């Protein structure tokens, strides 16, 4: 039963390790296949053709002209949100308020550029900082309530999403806060002023595809987060906190300091994502609008879940989720509703939740059986 425990030689140990790896891979592949099958069934049952849908999605996300640039543009905020989520997940905290943190970050960034009165590339840094501060502030509320009043951070972050939406909505109705005060525009559209062209983020053109330079910032941050989490004392302490709060406590890791910091950093990443969305040009046409966040926060959370809180794995995961978003734009021609992509996304996440749970249950059964054998 427990071949690893009784294996006499290195060769058979390696063999059992390979077999273990193969089992894990098989479990993952089977559950992803089941998820895609369910999605295909849903399509087929409503009269759509899975192959045409797949082809249209591929056209919309990478194959057609200038589409992979769009996909990269959408992947940037998804990756940033996922990176932030990785940080709090490593510390054992569940933040599900990314959508709100991102929105507040974007709103504070907007407030900064509309009220600072000057424009130019240097203001960009200020806008970024404002975004980071906004996201950190919104997560900071949850963090303070968690460690001062013992309120579960899951609930507070979730509830604050709705408060954020209403708050920014209020700001967008008042011309001294966020609303564009131009006379011909006021009271007609609830949008903010447009970002001055000199303050926008430069966009690169590669092979006919355009995307903002923030892509490189996001990639660099993924590497930084991976290194900090795996190679530094801070990262080690965060992981200790996540895996065994009691051990961490005994080892002198302050729960409120490291846990609180993890939540704030997570919010800061979301705020940065919001600021980049604003200055990058792929979202809202350089304006803040009431629906500016367009589910990037929720989907970024899903990306982090799919990547199993691994910063480097989050890069391809973010690209795949962004491809599902941009690909859905081409679905209108096939007559299939674009909401099918939401179904696919959620099914993928659910499918990826199953294997670790199954493997965990299996390992526990084995351990229990081994314990019984010893007795």
């Amino acid at each position, binding site marked *: 039963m427990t071949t690893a425990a009784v294996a006499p030689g290195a060769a058979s140990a390696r063999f059992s390790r390979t077999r273990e790896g193969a089992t894990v891979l098989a479990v993952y592949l089977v559950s992803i296949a089941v998820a895609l099958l369910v999605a295909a069934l*849903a399509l087929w049952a*409503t*009269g*759509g053709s899975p192959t045409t849908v797949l082809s249209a999605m591929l056209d919309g996300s990478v194959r057609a002209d200038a589409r992979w640039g769009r996909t990269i543009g959408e992947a940037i905020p998804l990756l940033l949100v996922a990176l932030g989520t990785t940080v709090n997940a490593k510390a054992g905290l*569940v933040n*599900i308020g990314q959508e709100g943190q991102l929105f507040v970050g974007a709103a504070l960034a907007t407030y900064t550029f509309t009220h600072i009165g000057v424009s130019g590339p240097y203001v960009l840094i200020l806008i970024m900082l404002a975004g980071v501060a906004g996201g950190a502030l919104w997560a900071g509320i949850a963090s303070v*309530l968690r460690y001062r*009043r*013992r*309120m*579960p951070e*899951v*609930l*507070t972050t*979730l*509830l*604050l999403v*709705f*408060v954020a939406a*209403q*708050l920014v*909505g*209020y700001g967008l*109705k008042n011309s001294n806060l966020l609303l564009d005060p131009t006379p011909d525009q006021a009271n007609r559209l609830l949008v903010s002023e447009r970002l001055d062209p000199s303050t926008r983020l430069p966009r690169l053109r590669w092979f006919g595809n355009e995307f903002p330079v923030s892509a490189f910032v996001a990639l660099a941050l993924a590497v930084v987060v991976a290194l900090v989490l795996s190679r530094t004392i801070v990262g080690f302490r965060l992981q200790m906190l996540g895996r065994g709060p009691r051990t961490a406590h005994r080892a002198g890791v302050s729960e409120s300091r490291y846990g609180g910091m993890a939540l704030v950093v997570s919010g800061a990443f979301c705020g940065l994502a919001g600021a980049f969305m604003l200055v990058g040009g792929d979202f809202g046409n350089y304006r803040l609008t009431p629906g500016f966040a367009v589910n990037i926060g*929720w989907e970024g*959370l*899903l990306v982090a*879940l799919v990547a199993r809180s691994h910063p480097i794995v989050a890069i391809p995961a973010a690209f795949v989720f962004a491809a599902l978003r941009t690909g859905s734009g081409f679905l209108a021609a096939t007559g299939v*509703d674009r*909401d*099918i*992509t*939401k*179904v696919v*996304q*959620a*099914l993928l*996440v*659910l499918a990826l*939740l*199953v294997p*670790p*749970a*199954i493997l*965990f*249950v299996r390992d*526990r059964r084995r351990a229990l059986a081994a314990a019984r054998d010893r007795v």
Partner: protein
Amino acid sequence: MFVDFFSAVGDVLSSESTYSSGWRLATALGFVAVGEWIAERAGTINISVEGAMLGGAFAAAMGYDATGSIAVGLVVGAGAGLVVGAVQAHFSHNLTANQFVVGLTLNILVLGLASFLNSTLKPETAAAHVFEVPGLVEIPLLGPALFGQPWPLYLLYPLVPLAWWLVHRTRWGLEVRAVGENPQAADVSSINVNARRRQAIYIAGITSGLGGGYLLLGQVGWYEDSIVGGQGFIAIAAVIFGGWTLRGAMLGCLLFGSANSFRLSLPGVGHPLNSELLSSLPFVLTICVMALFAHRTREPQSLARPFIRGLR
């Protein structure tokens, strides 16, 4: 500004329709909160009630479209809620996946699935007829609100005492509460902890589905993707706001439902008041109440902690 505010309050409070719509909005939350209360007493913060509500609403629309019967629509809606609840229960209390992750993903899945199916199937629906309870409807001001409503609303009236009886007066309810307080002790007393938690989530799914069905067939009358729009989350907030007692949870539903109807009726009486403020009221109030009375309310001690035998 304050004078304005108070005259607005006066105008709104003296009109019967305010009470009527406030009660309607509160009961939609009430269906969900009853089930969520049981689930939370068993130790799960079941955030998939939002999805169960939406699934219930869409399934009720499909059920009505197929049979033309409101009752069948409601049953189908409750069934859809049960399906969502069953998925949540088995992922979080059989496979030990994180309950919030599962709940959130389910919400997204149901939203996607419902809007996808709606765009292709386009069910046709109608609202249930109003049934006036003879005699009781004559009570001034409150009579029409409580007893002159679409008939599915009356389902909530027996549901609330039934839930209370179930949790506080039956063996099953005692076990549910034990599982939410101290699962290790319950486990030693040969209670199947995760089975009780799963059953509590099934009930939450059923009542949420029923709530969604009521929302569609009793109030709105047609399906749209934004029909639920966070009301499941407000119901969760109401349960927490009420300090995990059924009485408190229902009071929370009433408060949040009235706030919502107040927001909707303000433009009607000609008083512009900040509607964003009122919309965010349930969430802000819940956070404040939790922050202020966190040490006084008795939350189930194992709330949101998974139970795996041998691991603490």
